[in-house]
């Protein structure tokens, strides 16, 4: 019996509810005890954690659409067997966009100077560096560009998903050609805009502007690598889950192997960017640049700094190196979870030293929000998966995927 349509099982529902319940409780407690607190530090903690989680998970689910678009442009047919999984994951983008937007509205219009210190007009007037960046780092540009970005991600993503639904119906040769052309055009649109946002401006605005005096030209690519590898790990987790539930009967070890290669390669790519950013600053040893690594490497974040490297480079590198481990469901799941947690920690150390300084905490609210977002992903991806058949049977590239061999 071939199961074409994903049905949310009772176990899946139960775990979604548990995660959402625990996470939601943490969020409500966070609002009460941190967000509405008179204590400035507690408020900063509240908004930093929200910023970290909302940007991280938004970029991670958006990485799925990036994956779909690059494979479309490269005429890569191998991923067709599980293509509906990244599609379902990318359908969460509009939801997470709204959540992220709410956080930005809260930070910008709530004048949270402790998050973005360029929000303080008084301070900027006496600060020559921030004065020079005022054309970009101002509330209007920030909000307008963020809204445009989120709208285009959501719109083009929705367009790609709608196009994909056409492949559920039978197509003749002419229609297939037109279909591929349409996909190519929209994928190219997305990629170009992705380059202008995730590849450059968006990480500058959302994350790098926390340390507004400091800048790095590697930063956006670093953020992209971080979220893309976590995005591939998320796809791998859902593929393994569905496979274990007897769905996706055409997905074999070969497809998992290629996902594993993506996780391996982009873990190394992330390390490469991390190192390029670090080494130049370390070697030049200019105070205005080293200010970024001082608290992270020698200050309160020393442990997290090295944990970040171990969990995101050493472990995936050694665990995924063997061919057999990339084809093994257990190893792949383990490493995928590790990578997502690792890059969540990476985002933590990108945000916190600039906002919380040495008074950081990593306890119930931080992990609570992680659990909350995990629950949201399970809920919305489950819904997205159950809406369409799991295989676009009439997609012209399906056969290529079925006979895929690495």
């Amino acid at each position, binding site marked *: 019996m071939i199961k074409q349509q994903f049905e949310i099982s009772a176990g899946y529902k139960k775990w979604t509810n548990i995660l959402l319940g625990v996470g939601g409780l943490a969020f409500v407690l966070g609002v009460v005890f941190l967000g509405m607190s008179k204590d400035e530090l507690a408020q900063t903690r509240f908004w930093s954690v929200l910023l970290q989680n909302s940007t991280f998970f938004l970029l991670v689910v958006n990485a799925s659409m990036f994956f779909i678009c690059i494979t479309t442009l490269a005429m890569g047919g191998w991923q067709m067997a599980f293509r509906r999984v990244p599609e379902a994951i990318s359908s969460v983008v509009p939801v997470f966009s709204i959540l992220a937007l709410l956080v930005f509205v809260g930070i910008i219009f709530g004048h949270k100077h402790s998050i973005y210190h360029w929000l303080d007009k008084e301070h900027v007037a006496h600060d020559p560096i921030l004065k020079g960046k005022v054309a970009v780092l101002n509330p209007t540009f920030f909000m307008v560009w963020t809204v445009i970005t989120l709208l285009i991600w959501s719109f083009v993503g929705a367009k790609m998903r709608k196009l994909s639904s056409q492949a559920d119906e039978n197509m003749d040769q002419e229609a297939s050609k037109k279909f591929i052309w349409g996909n190519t055009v929209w994928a190219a649109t997305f990629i170009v805009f992705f380059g202008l946002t995730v590849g450059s401006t968006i990480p500058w605005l959302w994350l790098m502007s926390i340390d507004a005096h400091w800048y790095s030209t590697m930063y956006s690519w670093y953020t992209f690598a971080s979220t893309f590898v976590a995005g591939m790990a998320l796809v791998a987790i859902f593929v393994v889950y569905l496979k274990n539930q007897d769905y996706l009967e055409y997905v074999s070890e070969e497809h998992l192997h290629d996902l594993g290669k993506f996780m391996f390669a982009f873990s190394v790519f992330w390390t490469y960017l991390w*190192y390029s950013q*670090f*080494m130049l600053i*370390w*070697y030049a*040893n200019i105070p205005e640049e080293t200010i970024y690594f001082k608290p992270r490497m020698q200050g309160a974040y020393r442990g997290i700094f090295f944990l970040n490297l171990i969990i995101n480079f050493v472990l995936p590198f050694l665990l995924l*190196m*063997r*061919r057999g481990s990339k084809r093994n469901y257990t190893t792949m799941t383990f490493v995928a979870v590790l990578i997502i947690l690792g890059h969540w920690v990476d985002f933590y150390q990108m945000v916190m030293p600039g906002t919380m300084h040495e008074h950081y905490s990593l306890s119930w609210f931080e992990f609570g929000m992680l659990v909350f977002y995990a629950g949201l992903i399970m809920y919305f991806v489950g819904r997205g998966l159950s809406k369409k058949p799991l295989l676009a049977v009439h997609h012209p590239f399906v056969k290529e995927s079925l006979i895929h*061999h*690495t």
Partner: protein
Amino acid sequence: MALKKFVVGCFEDEKVLFPAVAKVRKAGYKIHDVYTPFPVHGLDQAMGLRETSLHTAGFLFGLIGTTTAVTFMTWVFTKDWPVNIGGKPNFALPAWIPITFELTVLCAAVGMVLSFLYICQLAPFVKRHHFHARATDDRFVMVIECGEKTNESELSSFMNSVGAIEVNTQVAEEGWWIGRYDQDQELYKQTNIA
């Protein structure tokens, strides 16, 4: 020099080759090797070859490269000739990463290539017998080794039945030798006539 008798079957298409390999193995014949004009995915599994250990060798070679680079640089910069470069510590690990990386890749790559050549018995002046010239062009050539009990004519007709378009029997050197083709060709003409 160990001369052996081989039955050589040529196939035109991968689609015929794969079931043929399965049938030949099932019939109990020993496949010496299958020569193809390009790498055929999945043929190694179909032939029942064990997975290569080349990547393990590569990992070890890489490890040798890493260790060499780090220990040598540590010795040079901290023991043998410590120099203050830009106020950096003598043990300047971040600055050594590129060299360590390069040496790791170099050792892994060169080591793997040499191991590969060794395993495949490829070297200058080393010769191996070619069972069919078109194996480098457009034919898939399956070579079956004849044992003492193998009935050649039976095997030949079996090869025809599984889809070989051309079958012949050859007596050939199984391993490698060092020599020259012009002289060796003579040798094989003689042995094959006999």
